[in-house]
C-alpha cells in the first residue's frame, strides 16, 4: 500500500475556549527490529519515529515513537479551541516514511 491510511477524529465545531479531544490513528506495521523471520534472518526495523500536530501551523502536540509502540499507533490528546482553521497531522519514520492528514474545525 503506497499511502498509509489515517483516521482522524476532530470535532467539526467547538466554542472558543473549549477543551477538545483529538484522536489520530494511522496504519503502520511498527516492526520493532528485534524479530526474526522463518529463515532466522533479522527483520529490519520499520517504525514511525515522530508525530507532530499543528493547529493553524502552530505545533500543539509532538510525540517521539519508539520500537515498543504497537502497530497502528493511536494517539489521543487535548487542546483548547482558539480559532477556526486547519489542524494538520504529520507522521514520519524509517525508510523515508511520511504521511500527512488534515481536519477542519469551526470555532464560534
Amino acid at each position, binding site marked *: 500500500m503506497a499511502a498509509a491510511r489515517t*483516521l482522524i477524529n476532530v470535532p467539526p465545531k467547538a466554542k472558543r475556549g473549549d477543551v477538545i479531544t483529538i484522536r489520530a490513528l494511522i496504519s503502520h506495521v511498527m516492526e520493532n527490529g528485534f524479530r526474526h523471520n522463518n529463515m532466522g534472518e533479522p527483520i529490519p526495523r520499520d517504525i514511525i519515529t515522530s508525530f507532530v500536530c499543528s493547529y493553524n501551523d502552530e505545533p500543539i502536540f509532538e510525540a517521539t515513537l519508539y520500537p515498543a509502540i*504497537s502497530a497502528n499507533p493511536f494517539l489521543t490528546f487535548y487542546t483548547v479551541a482558539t480559532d477556526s482553521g486547519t489542524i494538520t497531522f504529520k507522521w514520519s519514520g524509517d525508510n523515508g516514511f511520511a504521511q500527512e492528514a488534515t481536519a477542519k474545525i469551526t470555532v464560534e
Partner: protein
Amino acid sequence: MNGKLIALGFSALVAAGAIAMAADIPLDQRRSSYEDMSRDNKAMQDDDTANPAMLFVLDGEALWNTKAGASGKSCADCHGDAATSMKGVAARYPAFDDASGRPVDLEQRINISRQKNQQAEPFRYESREMLALSAYIALQSRGEAISQYDDPRLKPFIEKGRAAFHQRQGQLNLSCAQCHDDNWGKSLAGNIIPQAHPNGYPIYRLEWQNLGSLQRRLRNCMTGIRAEPYPFGAPEYVDLELFLMWRARGMTMESPGVRP
C-alpha cells in the same frame, strides 16, 4: 486407596461433564464476548475513528472499486454499491455453493468470484487484501442478525461441524465444547472464557496487532490445545465456522470487532 479415590473423583467429573455437555447454551443465555471486554476496548470497537479495523475497511473499499484480472472488472462493476448489495451477506455465510456441492465461507466466496468472474489471482489467506475486502463486506452486515440456518442442504455440514466442536483433540485432549459450552464465563489464566460466537469477524485482535479471520482464531485455539491445525481453507474449518454461525443464529453482527 488413593487410586480408588482418584478414580471415584474422576468418574464424578466425567458424570458432571456428561450432564453439562448434554445441551447447547440456551438461546437467551448467549452473549457476545464484547460484553466481557474492558471499557476501553469497548470504546475502541464502538468508535469508527478509533477501531483499527476501519483502516483495513478503507483499503477494502478501495479494492471493491479496483478493476482486477483479465476481465477488467471491479467488484463494484457487477455488485454495485456494497452498502446495498452486500448488506446481510456476511451474516449468512458460510453458504452452500452449488459448484462444489458444499458450504464455502466468505473468504472462499471472494476468491471464487475473483477467479471465475474477474479472472484474477485469488488472494492469499490472511493477506492484507483478503482481510481488507472481507472486513469491508462484513461491515455491511453490522447490526444484522445471523441468519444462515434455513438452507436444508447445509444440515449435514452443520452436523459435521457440531461433531468437530465436541471432538476431543490435541495433547491436552480437549474439545471446543469443554471450554466454550461447559465453562464459559469462568477464568482461564486471567482471561474470561468466551462462548465463542463468530459475530465480529474479521476481528482486530490487540494481541495480534492485526486484523485476523475466524480461521486464524480457530487455528489459534487448536495450537492452544496442542492439536495440529488444518491448513487454511480446509473444509474442516468451514464446517466448524458453519456450526458456530448456526450456534450464534439470531445474534447481532459486530464486524469488524475489536478483541483483546
